[in-house]
């Protein structure tokens, strides 16, 4: 599998805090990579560095064979990398359809063509009924799905999803999972998924990368990672992890 994204030794420092500390990994074309880790592990910072919103102090990001380190976000996006944001709360007056259209405008200048494409994507994500509502009238979970639809409008090769499932009920999580799988299979989009909803990330991902305190502490298949002592320590803390591991081992 050729690497679509190649991150090498990526380091981002805020004041004295190393939010990302020498992170290296690759994502192959067609893969779904889960990105997990406790709060403050540096997941969103990593997204910001990859997509150009932060400029890393050290390290390189290569995408589709080109070095994109330090490029501005819109140039990276135009190369075929889209993302959603952890917090997206709309205050404007755009409707759901119009928001999705803005994504499609990165591929066409024609409003009528953008409108057709946007309707198609909204239908595909089960948002067709909401098309004419102002986006600010949607609950946050709904807004995040609109953000996903908008990102898809750019027809990305790589899509970075930052906690799209937060705040959803189990039924909705199931629907979202189907939708993401659909995106992946039908459109051949490579995905990196930050998620706290383990059910989703463990079921979807081909491979999982675990961050803690800005470093990669484990990577591998979902089942392997779930049983990795280092990961359990990171999530539960030293003391409880020891107890848990004791109980788990026969």
């Amino acid at each position, binding site marked *: 599998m050729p690497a679509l994204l190649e991150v090498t030794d990526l380091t981002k420092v805020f004041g004295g805090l190393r939010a990302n500390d020498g992170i290296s990994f690759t994502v192959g074309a067609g893969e779904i990579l889960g990105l997990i880790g406790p709060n403050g592990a540096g997941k969103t910072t990593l997204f910001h560095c990859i997509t150009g919103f932060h400029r890393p102090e050290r390290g390189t990001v290569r995408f589709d064979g080109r070095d994109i380190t330090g490029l501005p976000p819109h140039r990276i*996006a*135009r190369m075929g990398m889209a993302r959603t944001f952890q917090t997206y709360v709309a205050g404007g007056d755009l409707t759901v359809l*119009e928001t999705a259209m803005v994504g499609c*405008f990165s591929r066409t200048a024609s409003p009528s063509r953008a409108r057709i494409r946007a309707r198609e994507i909204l239908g595909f994500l089960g948002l067709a009924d909401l098309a004419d509502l102002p986006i600010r009238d949607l609950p946050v979970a709904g807004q995040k799905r609109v953000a996903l639809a908008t990102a898809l409008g750019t027809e990305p090769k790589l899509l970075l999803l930052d906690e799209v499932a937060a705040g959803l009920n189990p039924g909705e999580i199931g629907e979202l999972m189907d939708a993401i799988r659909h995106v992946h299979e039908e459109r051949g989009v490579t995905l990196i998924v930050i998620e706290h909803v383990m059910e989703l990330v463990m079921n979807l991902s081909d491979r999982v990368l675990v961050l803690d305190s800005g470093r990669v502490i484990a990577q591998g298949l979902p089942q392997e990672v779930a049983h990795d002592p280092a990961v359990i320590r990171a999530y539960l803390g030293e003391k409880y992890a020891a107890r848990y591991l004791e109980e788990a081992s026969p």
Partner: protein
Amino acid sequence: MEALRAAFDFSDFRPTERWVSRAVAAFLLVFPLLPVSSFATATMIQFLMFSLYGMGWNTIGGYGGQVDLGKAQYVGIGAYTTAVALIRWDVPFWVSMPVGMGFAVLWSFAIGYPLFRLRGHYFAIATIAASLVLKDLFEVWDFVGAARGLEIPAHRFATPDFVRLIFKEDVYYYYVLLAFFFGGVLYMNAFRKSRLGYQLRLIKDNEDMARSLGINVHWAKVKTYAIATAFVSMVGSFHACYIKNIEPEDTMSLDLSILIALMAMLGGAGSLWGPIIGAGILIPLKSYFKEWFGARAGLVGMDLILYALIIMVVSAVEPRGIWGLVERHRARRESA
């Protein structure tokens, strides 16, 4: 082609809005044929001019959400280009107007490029500062008449002169400007449905998201600023031929910049009708208040006091302006 169709397509407005706008258009067309005073015609010309200023402002200020308080400098560039060209080289209006727009757009790039690194209040104040610097320069620049300004020697030309846009009767000016006005409305109608229009509205709402979708936010703002500028400069050129007497103090003053922004904000920033409503209410009020109170001793400034109170009440009650009030009322009626 698609843009042209979009310009004439008002189908996404409600039937009542379409009927009202048709009625207003018809009224504007026949207005000079009615038995009206020359004062009323002059007021209507002011209304049309400020509607156009407001439409231009509305692209960047309304749809783009960047409160621009320096539009007067571009009124000045348009007005001075036309006046200087006519006085010195007898250049027709229809040539000097696009040339003026060209100068204004070039200047807007020079100013806009650094300016759009700023946001919010900082941006608004910087636009004022930039505009005042240009005005100060014009006040000492002898080529453009410095602080004395310029006067177009209208008596030298046989009127009506459609090439130089020199008329004796206001009614000619009225119809030329009305053509600009309808053109402006059509342009704005296409603009709000264009790629740039939608992108701007997302930028206003969420810049980071816009960036992540491949939009060069800075360039989109600079581009829109140039569009706004072209609009304003065009009306500035008209202003020169209409008023015939221009000086930095009235074509480039901060008061003018503020008035332009105020019209659009009061009417409803970011809506097609907003600037027209704003100008339609404020201009007649201003003219007639001045007429009523200005002449009476002891009531100097009374017109502007009432004017200020209206602005204050609207800003406190409904920040989306008068159009916002209309929409709120409509939403309430529909939910009831």
